[in-house]
């Protein structure tokens, strides 16, 4: 066979362009496989909204997800409207976009900060969050585990700061201080259309200072930045929090386009216009760029911390200490 040549060339060193690509194994196809799997399974997201009544929490949720995911509270008399204790109301919706299915759960906390005496109003909320962790932990240590443990852990807690324009209130500080240790907190300035741009900047600066002074680490937390690229992106975000948002689920005609907004005698506030308010930044952060990151931090950091605490607690209990039920880990 004069016209054949045996050559022992390691495949990566082919000198000519062959008809078949000699050095392509195809491992990048695994991304496609993962994608298929993810699309089939769908995603879960649990967002908690916390703030006094009337700050526009439900409207903001509806605006974020462009559908009625949150029912606005019933406008009754004072006694009917404000519950005596804080309730935790959880509503789930299955939404779909471009083939991606998501089970969105909005957890509302009516009654927060509405009482005359608001001491310890964060306790039911912390208990709820810890209960979700506990439920996940129990599922995880089961002998017969489910293939995919349903994730009811709170991934993100949006805290609504009333637009006083001065500084954080003691309630805000107390709440965020405690909760930033167990869940990702995203503080927002609610109903920001009552602040002018200068007032808004001043308010934000004041809030950032106070958060720093009290050692409160809100999302994106500095210590969880993975690498330089992440840090760069997150620094830009950290310079902008808290986002000053305006929510609306009504459309108006502006310059020939129909936009979500609030119409007043002196002009129309466009919700998605970044010159008017920072809703678009919040939406991008929460949904378009950092959603997976928020979930990852919840599961790999907050949940792991809870788990370690819990396992250690169990061991000290077994060593003969008193109470069987661990207290919710209050700090």
């Amino acid at each position, binding site marked *: 066979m004069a016209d054949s040549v*045996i050559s022992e060339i390691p495949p990566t060193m082919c000198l000519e362009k062959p008809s078949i690509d000699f050095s392509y194994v195809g491992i990048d196809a695994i991304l496609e496989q993962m994608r298929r799997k993810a699309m089939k399974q769908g995603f879960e997201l649990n967002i908690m909204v916390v703030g006094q009544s009337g700050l526009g929490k439900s409207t903001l949720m509806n605006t974020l997800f462009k559908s009625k995911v949150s029912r606005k509270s019933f406008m009754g008399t004072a006694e009917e409207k404000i519950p005596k204790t804080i309730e935790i109301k959880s509503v789930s919706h299955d939404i779909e976009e471009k083939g991606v299915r998501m089970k969105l759960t909005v957890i509302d906390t009516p009654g927060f900060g509405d009482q005359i005496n608001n001491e310890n109003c964060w306790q039911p909320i912390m208990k709820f969050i810890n209960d979700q962790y506990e439920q996940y932990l129990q599922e995880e240590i089961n002998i017969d585990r489910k293939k995919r443990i349903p994730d009811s852990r709170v991934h993100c807690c949006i805290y609504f700061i009333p637009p006083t324009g001065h500084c954080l209130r003691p309630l805000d500080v107390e709440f965020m201080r405690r909760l930033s240790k167990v869940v990702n907190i995203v503080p927002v300035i609610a109903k920001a259309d009552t602040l002018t741009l200068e007032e808004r900047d001043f308010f934000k600066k004041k809030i950032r200072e106070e958060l720093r002074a009290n050692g409160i680490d809100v999302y994106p937390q500095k210590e969880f930045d993975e690498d330089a690229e992440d840090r760069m992106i997150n620094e830009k975000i950290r310079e*902008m929090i808290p986002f000053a948002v305006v929510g609306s689920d009504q459309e108006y005609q502006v310059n020939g386009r129909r936009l979500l907004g609030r119409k007043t005698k002196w002009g129309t506030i466009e919700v998605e216009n970044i010159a008017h308010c920072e809703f678009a930044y919040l939406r991008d952060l929460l949904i378009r760029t950092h959603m997976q990151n928020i979930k990852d931090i919840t599961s790999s950091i907050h949940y792991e911390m809870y788990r370690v605490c819990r396992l250690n607690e169990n061991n000290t209990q077994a060593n*003969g200490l008193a109470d069987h039920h661990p207290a919710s880990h209050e700090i």
Partner: protein
Amino acid sequence: MAAHSTVSRDCEVRLTEDQDKEYVGFATLPNQVHRKSVKKGFDFTLMVAGESGLGKSTLVNSLFLTDLYKDRKLLNAEERITQTVEITKHTVDIEEKGVKLKLTIVDTPGFGDAVNNTECWKSVADYIDQQFEQYFRDESGLNRKNIQDNRVHCCLYFISPFGHGLRPLDVEFMKALHEKVNIVPVLAKADTLTPLEVKKKKIKIREEIEQYGIKIYQFPDCDSDEDEEFKQQDQELKDSIPFAVIGSNTVVEAKGKRVRGRLYPWGIVEVENPAHCDFVKLRNMLVRTHMQDLKDVTRETHYENYRAHCIQSMTRMVVKERNRNKLTRESGTDFPIPTAPGVSDSETEKLIREKDEEVRQPPHTQTQEQECVTQECVDQECVMHDECVQESVQEECVMQEESVQEAEHCAELC
């Protein structure tokens, strides 16, 4: 769409998308998940098993276009007589189009080589169990940040083309391992067979696999909404088991074409020609379409089975220890971490069953005994070596034991 572009740059993109008023934006979620995985990279552990000389190393090299066995020294016949089956690991990092894969190949030199091959699969089964155990400990431990997944995701078993279907060693090996790992049977050195012989052999082997109740890796069924081409390919794949493969890492040139293959005086066997052998099918299955599924089945089925078994046997040991302590008034024995959790001799089983009966008999002392368990476990804990891991495993074990007892109690009442 640049999922992580800076927020200000998103302006222009946003404007066009917002015109689509219904667009919220979470359709980017799969991309966000991608990003993390690409950064972290993937890993895959493949085991190859079969007698020497069946072309395992060549096939692995052909599959992943690497040369893993550069410095290998082959033993001659005398040296192989008393050789035991070793387990060797080779790891290689492959990167392609920005995707990093840490590939680990587990080889079993010496398998089936000795004169007496009884239980030569034992070291293989032990290795797989060890990896499960390691993962179980890591998963139950306190620091779960960087768990290394060394579990074997797939085992390519090489069947010799010279026999008449499966040989006794093949059957025993596959039966010992089919519940621990995904087995993909492969018909080696298929260039010694004509197409008709290949077809007949495949049918025979498939029949024998079913006859002996061997559970090889099953391809997942297609969704009903997949396109026809995909379904057809999937069906072809299922009909090609075992894959008749030929491996080659040499490039041969014939009539101006360069192909990877083997040169014979009577022609050239092309490795990547689907008419010549199933190499392309195997590679596509392993790497391009089913890698994720292989890992999922390992994680969700084989590992979960191991874990459930492990917890139950550990729970039983705790019960046994407790009863033994109660009877002989001994205290402070070491907590027995099972070394080979899958193996429990019949006598121990009988003892456990007797003790279980004892436990079940007096229902009014049940709760007392449950409390005693925690106390007994306390004594044992003090003597444990590796406290952190042991404690968390222990804790799970106590919780399991209580739930197992409850389950037994309930079952008894029903």
